[in-house]
């Protein structure tokens, strides 16, 4: 089953890269969101997949009867998701402020040469 | 006994959920899609959660299942309503087979304008959302 997840991750990365290479600011930020999805799923998959065995111990038990999913990648992803949200929120506002300044989505109108 | 009940409820629930999908896929205008989708799905979820409650035979699970059910039944119609209201207000068209639009008639009467087509009256005069959310 790893192949499917791996391909999905790759696909997310590819589409995010493609989007970020567009001239549109909006697509750029969509690309950023997909990129974070890709990264999260990457950690999730790389850490090893296990179906339907959440790392929550049953009451009064200190071990799992059936091996459960690795909790650490989950914790990492959770952190990454939340951080990503904070960053995304800020980036969104930043981009919208940029729109207000330029009234254009075309980044080529927005940037100017830096020399 | 509980197993059979669970199984039946699940199949029914699944069937309604499928129905919701078909409905939203097939119905000719937004409002009828909503009609089909919201209710069938809500009912389907109700069945599913009932199945959960029966299957696990655990108070806390059952409580939560019921809570979710209640919640869904509470919110689904409101969600449908707010979207329908918004969609109507921006002029999402009604199906051509629509018999009569009493809301539109009233508004046109109030504004003294004579628009003919059903659903053509937008409460706020906005028509940009007719074909797509934010234009091209």
């Amino acid at each position, binding site marked *: 089953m790893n192949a499917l997840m791996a391909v999905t991750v790759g696909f997310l990365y590819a589409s995010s890269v493609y989007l970020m290479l567009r001239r549109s600011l909006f697509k750029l930020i969509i690309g950023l969101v997909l990129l974070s999805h890709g990264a999260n799923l990457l950690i999730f998959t790389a850490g090893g997949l296990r179906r339907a065995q959440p790392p929550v111990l049953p009451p009064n038990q200190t071990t799992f009867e059936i091996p459960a999913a690795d909790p650490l990648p989950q914790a990492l992803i*959770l952190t990454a998701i939340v951080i990503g949200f904070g960053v995304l929120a800020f980036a969104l506002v930043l981009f919208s402020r940029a729109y207000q300044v330029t009234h254009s989505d075309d980044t080529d109108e927005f940037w100017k040469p830096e020399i | 006994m509980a197993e059979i009940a669970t199984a039946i409820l699940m199949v029914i629930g699944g069937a309604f959920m499928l129905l919701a999908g078909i409905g939203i896929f097939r119905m000719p205008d937004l409002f009828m899609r909503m009609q089909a989708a919201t209710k069938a799905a809500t009912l389907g979820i109700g069945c599913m959660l009932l199945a959960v409650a029966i299957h696990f035979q655990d108070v806390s699970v059952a409580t939560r299942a019921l809570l979710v059910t209640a919640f869904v039944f509470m919110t689904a119609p*409101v969600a449908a309503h*707010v979207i329908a209201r918004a969609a109507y207000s921006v002029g999402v068209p009604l199906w051509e087979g629509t018999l009569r639009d009493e809301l539109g008639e009233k508004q046109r009467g109030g504004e003294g304008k004579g628009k003919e087509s059903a659903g053509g009256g937008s409460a706020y005069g906005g028509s940009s959302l007719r074909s797509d959310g934010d234009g091209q």
Partner: protein
Amino acid sequence: MPSLILRTTTRFMMPLLLLFSLFLLWRGHNEPGGGFVGGLVGASAFILYTLSFSVQATRDALAFDSRSLIGVGLMLALTAGIMPLTQGQPFLAHRNFWVKLELPGFGQLDLGTPLMFDIGVYLVVFGVALTIVLTLTEE
């Protein structure tokens, strides 16, 4: 003006959502949930309120600034981390800060600095989500 139907429903759902968010926070240590999820659900309640009424209504309803929630939350989490330091333990060493309580209706309780930490997280997340949405909606 948002729909009356929405407004009425929201008024009913608010306490429900807040209760649920506290529930998630409370049992997060043992079941899925925790400060993040709880805080987000809690904020959702007020976000829903904002969407159904207005930003001003939410500010009035809150009666305090959402920013101060962030500050308080941070301080709380920090305090939870610092408390072990006072006993020569490492930062965030929750291990020796557990109290077992028997409470009727709640069963046996494991109370400790992790919960305090989680409450801090809850408040921060709550405040952050609210601040962001309220500010944006005001625009």
